[in-house]
């Protein structure tokens, strides 16, 4: 457990000092929010229905930028080799990296959600607990699969492109479920249909987190 906190602290401290990944993510998310909101025309209902999709697409592409930068930083100056030689199980490394990405995505959404609401002129009827639940489960799914594939593609030629090519189709079920759940809850409909999307989100978050923890051992071999 101590190793997990040290690794998490190392990632957060590196980001605090370098300020490379998180500001890039915030900037990209903000620009995407601006561009989408410029195109979001029509009635209130139409804009409300598009809000979830736009928010999660912006989150996804910003997340990919962050993941690519995070693993590129690890590859610099032999940091990755140092991490591999550190006497700790690979699952702990995965969980620490996963947590730092979840935190990054959480902060990004704390910024993007009000930005989208303001720019698209829509009302937000979702209760706070539902907003937190959807954000947490969606971010868990994206961060789990993103961390695993980000580590896989980090040393590869065209690694950044490969990351998006592999993670996007794997994340589509998570993005669809999160976008639908966001659309329903933003209209204040936390009903049975909403819970069905939450179940799907939870299932993918658990499956990807378990698969990531189990397979990360094979990822950190080189």
């Amino acid at each position, binding site marked *: 457990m101590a190793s997990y906190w040290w690794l998490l602290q190392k990632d957060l401290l590196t980001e605090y000092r370098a300020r490379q990944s998180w500001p890039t993510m915030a900037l990209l998310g903000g620009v995407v929010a601006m561009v989408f909101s410029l195109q979001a025309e029509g009635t209130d209902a139409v804009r409300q229905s598009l809000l979830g999709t736009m928010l999660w697409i912006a989150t996804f592409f910003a997340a990919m930028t962050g993941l690519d930068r995070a693993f590129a930083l690890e590859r610099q100056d032999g940091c990755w080799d140092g991490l591999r030689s550190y006497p700790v199980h690979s699952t702990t490394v995965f969980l620490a990296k996963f947590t730092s990405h979840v935190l990054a995505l959480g902060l990004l959404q704390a910024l993007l959600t009000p930005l989208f609401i303001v720019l698209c002129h829509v009302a937000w009827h979702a209760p706070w607990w539902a907003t937190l639940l959807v954000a947490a489960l969606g971010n868990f799914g994206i961060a789990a699969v993103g961390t695993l594939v980000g580590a896989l593609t980090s040393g590869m030629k065209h690694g950044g492109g490969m990351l998006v090519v592999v993670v996007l*189709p*794997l994340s589509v079920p998570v993005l669809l479920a999160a976008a639908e759940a966001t659309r329903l809850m933003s209209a204040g409909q936390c009903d049975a249909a909403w819970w069905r999307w939450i179940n799907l989100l939870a299932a993918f978050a658990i499956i990807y987190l378990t698969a990531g923890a189990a397979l990360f051992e094979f990822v950190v071999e080189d």
Partner: protein
Amino acid sequence: MDTCTASFHRRSISDVMCALLVAAMFVAIFWLAPEEQTMGEVQRIMYVHIAVAWCGLLGSLITAGAGLLYLLRRNIVCDQWAQAAAEWGWLCCGLTLVTGSLWAREAWGVWWTWEPRLTSMFILWTIQCGYLLVRANLDDPHRRARVAAVVAILGALDVPLVVMATRWFRGMHPEAPTMEPTMRAVLALSVIGFSLVSAGLVTRRRGQLGRQHQLGLADPAHSY
């Protein structure tokens, strides 16, 4: 008769048997199966559509299984099976989407709709595209095998979603429609026929990849 000639004769016999099976399958689909009352001739697409969908899903599962075996045993032959199954699975999933689209045009009046099973199948096909692209971007055979195995295992997690999509999300896709016995027999023949042809092609492709590896030609540029 030397080993090489015997192997050539065995392959020729299996080729002829496969060709006869495919011919029998198409005769059964176009002449033996009765015309469906509501959709007419277009319904015959279903015999090919279900068979290629089955092969596509099976290909994805075999790719993941062979990938898992590679991770456990580090035997490059497992990776060759994974690649052969992935290529065939990709083609079959693509054919599923094309035949499904042709059927949807007649049944639903659109070439494409974001129906749960269509969407999940499309996602699986894009995952398979990603898998093949990742393979093509790695030169070292063992690194390629390891990375591809992880992607294949993650990709196979979409297979239950494809199978259960109609039940979980109440889509428009027909689920276990009632058929008369002749139609069911033709469908069974089609599924068995496509499965045997798939097994033959995947085995042959695996042999080709094995020979490429022995000759030192396992570079992606020679595989695609």
